[in-house]
């Protein structure tokens, strides 16, 4: 194999509950603000969790032309929230990168899960199937066509976002949608890095989006007792009792062009726990293998900063903290650690990408963001936590973790670019 090319981050963009661009969002994060509040766009009385970090403002369609929208059969009444959020973040990242390349050398790598059919759609499905507790297959067969007309299929396909971006950029390189639950966007960025290394494309638009503040997902995660009953996201805190759902999109542009780069992607790693559907393995074996692989790929033994998966669930945070200590050894005592989920909740498929943007802020500007909500660190989560507000300190390297339900783990290590 020939020498592995170096990969740089040339642009970033994000839409978060704090704002419609990354700089606005970063400022709020720097100050230690929290975007979690009561959900008001549907009735959450008696739901397992009644709060989320959600985007209140109308999100305009600023990037995709009518042509791409028409191809995707997007109609006014069936807007895809993932696409709305993602396109705004992608526009920001693409414009910041300001790279020029033929479409055939551009790849698109998006972490996304299915969009959500509206509750009306689900109820229509129920009616088409007989309306009882059992699916009446015969009746459903007769009514399926009518039912099918009642919802917009592109809204529920995970590939919608990547397809729309490929159309917008006339990108005919690899167009991939990675669906790895909470590790989706981190893994999509890993795939983008690999694709450039393998010569499959020169530029990659990559990242992820999460738009799961809806009744079905609040109930779905609630059934698992994964959500915070207290309505508080406080990763690594002794009071943590579950995560809070958030929504947003974060995108990056990767290239081999170091000029004006924000950071370098130095290492990537992936593993599977092969242990349990919802729990990480007790000894953090999968997480450790993922981190070790990324560090080895970067040629490092430890980093200055870790943007942790840090969900605020009792099990994850303890296992992750122990894994970080084990992988980096005594050197971990000098590594700053934080999790953005305290401020913006858990974006599921988009979580890893916004974590990586936080790490870019650390290595580029020395801005290490705090873990919002963390006031009383749990002794089993002992690490060099950043609390309250951001600190300013030189950071040469950073590591970003994403661990998914089902046991898929993905880790990225980035380095500072010396200008």
């Amino acid at each position, binding site marked *: 194999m020939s020498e592995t090319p170096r990969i740089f981050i040339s642009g970033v963009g994000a839409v978060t509950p704090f704002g419609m661009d990354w700089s606005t969002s970063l400022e709020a994060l720097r100050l230690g603000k929290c975007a979690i509040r009561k959900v008001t766009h549907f009735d959450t009385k008696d739901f397992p969790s009644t709060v989320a970090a959600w985007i209140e403002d109308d999100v305009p369609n600023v990037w995709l032309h009518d042509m791409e929208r028409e191809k995707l059969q997007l109609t006014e009444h069936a807007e895809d929230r993932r696409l709305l959020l993602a396109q705004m973040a992608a526009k920001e990242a693409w414009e910041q990168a300001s790279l020029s390349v033929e479409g055939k050398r551009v790849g698109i790598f998006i972490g996304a899960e299915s969009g959500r059919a509206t509750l009306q759609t689900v109820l229509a499905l129920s009616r088409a199937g007989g309306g009882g507790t*059992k699916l009446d297959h015969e009746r459903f067969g007769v009514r399926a066509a009518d039912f099918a007309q009642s919802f917009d299929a592109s809204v529920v396909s995970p590939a919608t976002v990547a397809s729309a971006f490929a159309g917008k950029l006339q990108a005919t390189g690899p167009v991939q949608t990675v669906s790895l639950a909470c590790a989706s966007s981190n893994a999509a960025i890993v795939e983008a890095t690999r694709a450039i290394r393998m010569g499959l494309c020169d530029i990659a638009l990559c990242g992820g989006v999460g738009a799961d503040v809806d009744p079905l997902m609040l109930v779905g995660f609630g059934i698992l007792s994964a959500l915070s009953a207290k309505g508080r996201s406080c990763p690594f805190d002794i009071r943590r009792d579950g995560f809070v759902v958030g929504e947003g999109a974060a995108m990056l542009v990767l290239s081999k062009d170091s000029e004006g780069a924000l950071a370098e992607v130095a290492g990537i790693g992936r593993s599977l726990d092969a242990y349990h559907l919802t729990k990480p393995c007790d000894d953090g074996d999968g997480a450790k293998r993922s981190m070790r*692989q990324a560090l080895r790929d970067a040629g490092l033994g430890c980093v200055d900063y870790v943007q942790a998966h840090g969900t605020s669930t009792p099990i994850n945070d303890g296992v992750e903290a122990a894994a970080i200590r084990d992988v980096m050894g005594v050197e971990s005592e000098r590594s700053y650690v934080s999790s953005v989920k305290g401020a913006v909740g858990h974006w599921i498929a988009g979580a890893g990408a916004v974590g990586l943007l936080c790490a870019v802020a650390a290595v580029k500007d020395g801005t290490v963001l705090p873990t919002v909500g963390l006031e009383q660190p749990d002794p089993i989560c002992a690490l060099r936590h950043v609390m309250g507000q951001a600190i300013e300190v030189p950071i040469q390297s950073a590591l970003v973790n994403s661990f998914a339900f089902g046991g898929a783990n993905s880790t990225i290590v980035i380095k500072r670019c010396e200008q």
Partner: protein
Amino acid sequence: MKGILPQPIAVVGAAAFCQLGLDWPSFRERCIGLLAGRKDTTLQDFPLVVPKAQSKPEKRQRRLMSRSALLATVALNELLKALPWDEQREELGCYMGVGASGGSEEQLFQLLEASRENVGAPFSFQHFGEEGLRSCNPLYAFQILHNFTLCHPSILHGLGGANSAFFSRGAGTTHALSEGAYAVLEGDCQRALVGGADAGRTPMAHAELEREGYLSKGLQAAEGAGWIALERDAQGHALGWLERCTTYSTARNGFERVTQDILQELQQEPPEQLVLYPWNQALQALWAKEAKQHLPNVKILELESLLGDPLAAGPALGWLAALATLGEGHSKRTTVLHTGIDTEISVVTFSHQKER
């Protein structure tokens, strides 16, 4: 040529679970028969009959699986049983093309029904969040997360290495193969399992495909799963060697033009056999015509009319058909052309011997 691997990778095992066979030997036998012109090939009926769970943990876990995850698990059971790969499974790579066909409709209906104050009453958010929640399988949400098609079998078999799940209606499964191959070549893992599984005949998936207009365009939605096992250098017998793996977008130049470009490219070094596996019969006819024109001496195996389109599983079943008909007395090099409803064209080539 685009997508040629830096060095061929050994395919040391295969497993199929589809209409053409519920295991690799019967799938292989039928493929050979088809190529020999046999007309009496019998197909399995839908839904495919799934064998009993191999163990108590599997039996328990099956209750939490989507149909796609179940099909993936059944096929992987067969593959791992046949491979001498019991050691160091935590280092095995695992790459999959996975579909959107999700959870049980009946679960959803139970949840909705419990979300009414009484029978026939309107839906209530309050009941949804309380009684609805309690009526439901605790892991229902995970039946609709696509990566669980990969995670269920990985947990059951202790597969812990590099991995990814690509959403696929065709090309995603080829991306999985490309990623698996490079993971092996670059040393992320020494061995990897690559496959695809999907269930296009569940009511919800069928309704989606109808809505998108694919059924009226001739899509025969199907279900199935296929896996292959990759090893950097075959320790034992190899079924074949993966030489090339790539996808072509048809967005800019159109399907017919891209097809012609690919076939012209193949003229430089023609395979002995082509497996043609597009998603409907119109494309099958187009491909057969173009193939005869560009590669007149190449044997052709057509799969669409036999297998329909099992979406994310389709490309993997195409690879298996190629591997089934490689070897002495058969083809020395076979190229699979596949296209799914995502319109990208996948090109994958296997050779009988390690030649490059």
